[in-house]
């Protein structure tokens, strides 16, 4: 066969970059880089698939840590809500019995004057913002959720607690009609109503958030509608769902999981990769949607904002 091989230096016409484009190569590189940055926006756009129409007005989170959001689908189909079932996938189908209409929140304890809040009324008075937070479960999984809501600090100020109030105690609704597991008595998964608590300085921290929505629309029932707590530097169980009562108290409240097993779940429940849970290592976590694990950050990545709250405390003891 007679194959004519061109020498390597003999370039054909289409191998040559036109001078004009060659000169523009810097802007090409920039374009390439820009497309990589923008992929975050593309992911966000894709993540918004299947989301109900956003109907909340809120101040957008700048997402300075460039966190990749979990999809609406992931966030709303994988839930721990023991009042319905211990099956994370099963909550969504059962949660319809929760009735969030005319939701009231009772505020009592060490306040100037106890009162009851109409939730919709409260929301209309609050400045609603978006908070893109990491969310870490003690079981070793995590996700990134764009919550909508307001800072707890604003509500506390409105409640006018007395100076004696050292802790804040939250309680979910007790209603056997709404929550099937509550009617199971001794066969129930945990003691009801579900109780959680924060120290006053934790509650006043700028990160501590009362969520009423996610992805710009009101919270689905399985995610703790109509209002829930979000403390992103603590394990997920601390973020009590469907809050019906807030009390200001002097003594540290006994939270549900501490009551169930104080050796494994403490009052603080701070995300701490250096202190293992007796059964599960906390060093790493699996972000939902990813197959491999990533390292867990101290205080779930919010060390700068909250580490000062625990100065001088032995974090092996105060779990």
């Amino acid at each position, binding site marked *: 066969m007679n194959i004519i091989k061109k020498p390597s230096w003999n370039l054909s016409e289409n191998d040559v970059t036109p001078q004009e484009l060659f000169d523009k190569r810097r802007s090409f590189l920039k374009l390439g880089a820009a497309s990589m940055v923008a992929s975050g926006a593309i992911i966000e756009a894709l993540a918004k698939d299947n989301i109900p129409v956003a109907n909340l007005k809120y101040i957008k989170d700048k997402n300075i840590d460039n966190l990749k959001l979990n999809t609406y689908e992931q966030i709303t189909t994988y839930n721990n809500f023991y009042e319905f079932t211990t099956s*994370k996938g099963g909550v969504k189908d059962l949660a319809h019995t929760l009735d969030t209409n005319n939701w009231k929140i009772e505020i009592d304890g060490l306040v100037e004057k106890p009162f009851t809040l109409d939730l919709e009324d409260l929301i209309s008075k609050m400045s609603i913002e978006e908070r893109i937070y990491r969310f870490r479960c003690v079981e070793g999984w995590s996700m990134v959720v764009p919550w909508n809501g307001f800072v707890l600090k604003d509500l506390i100020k409105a409640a006018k607690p007395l100076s004696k109030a050292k802790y804040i105690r939250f309680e979910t609704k007790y209603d056997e009609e709404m929550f099937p597991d509550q009617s199971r008595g001794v*066969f129930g998964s945990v003691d009801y109503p579900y109780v959680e608590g924060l120290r006053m300085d934790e509650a006043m921290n700028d990160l501590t958030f009362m969520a009423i929505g996610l992805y710009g629309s009101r919270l689905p029932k399985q995610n703790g509608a109509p209002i829930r707590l979000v403390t992103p530097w603590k394990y997920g169980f601390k973020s009590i769902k469907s809050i019906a009562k807030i009390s200001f108290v002097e003594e540290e409240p006994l939270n549900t999981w501490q009551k169930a097993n104080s050796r494994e779940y403490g009052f603080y429940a701070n995300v701490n990769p250096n202190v293992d849970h007796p059964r599960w*290592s906390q060093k790493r976590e*699996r972000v939902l*949607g990813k197959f491999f*694990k990533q390292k867990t950050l101290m205080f779930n990545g919010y060390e700068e904002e909250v580490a000062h709250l625990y100065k001088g405390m032995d974090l092996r003891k105060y779990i």
Partner: protein
Amino acid sequence: MKRLTIHLLLLSPLVFLLAQLFIFEVNDPIKYIYIVSGITATVILFFSITISMIKKHINLMKFRKDIGLFGFFYALLHMVNFIVFDAQLDLGFIIEETLDKPFIYLGMIAFFILLFMALTSTKKLFRKFNKYHRLIYIALVLITIHFIMAQKTIALDLFCYIVIIIVIGYYKLLQIIVRNNHVK
């Protein structure tokens, strides 16, 4: 034909698991593998000890080895999930966790008992080692503790499992007592 049916039945949890993983795409695949492989192994292994009890009604003695090996297969899957996907082959982490956490070392001990039984299940070796196959009872006790410890709370479905396990344990004990008296 009977053997094929039993094999297909024992393989169905694996098919179900693969379908969930690759077609329906569960949110937390590693956890899901743990749950399905763990429960399947537990159910099959508990069933394997009831075979000698029910042989008058349904005689599956011929398939006992196959059934036991399938139980081991799901336990192996459970173990591979821990080592490869969960621990990501980090040997230091595996050893540290195993020595540190009762929940894990109980499971490990049970696994090594099953591994020993699987390896000595060939005709030749079984003749030599069959008396050690009674270790299955220790493995089952460890598996049950491991299973309960894996839960955050004892919910209603777990109660059902425990009741079934206690019933099987009771009848098995009765069977052993009756057999021993008979020998005398």
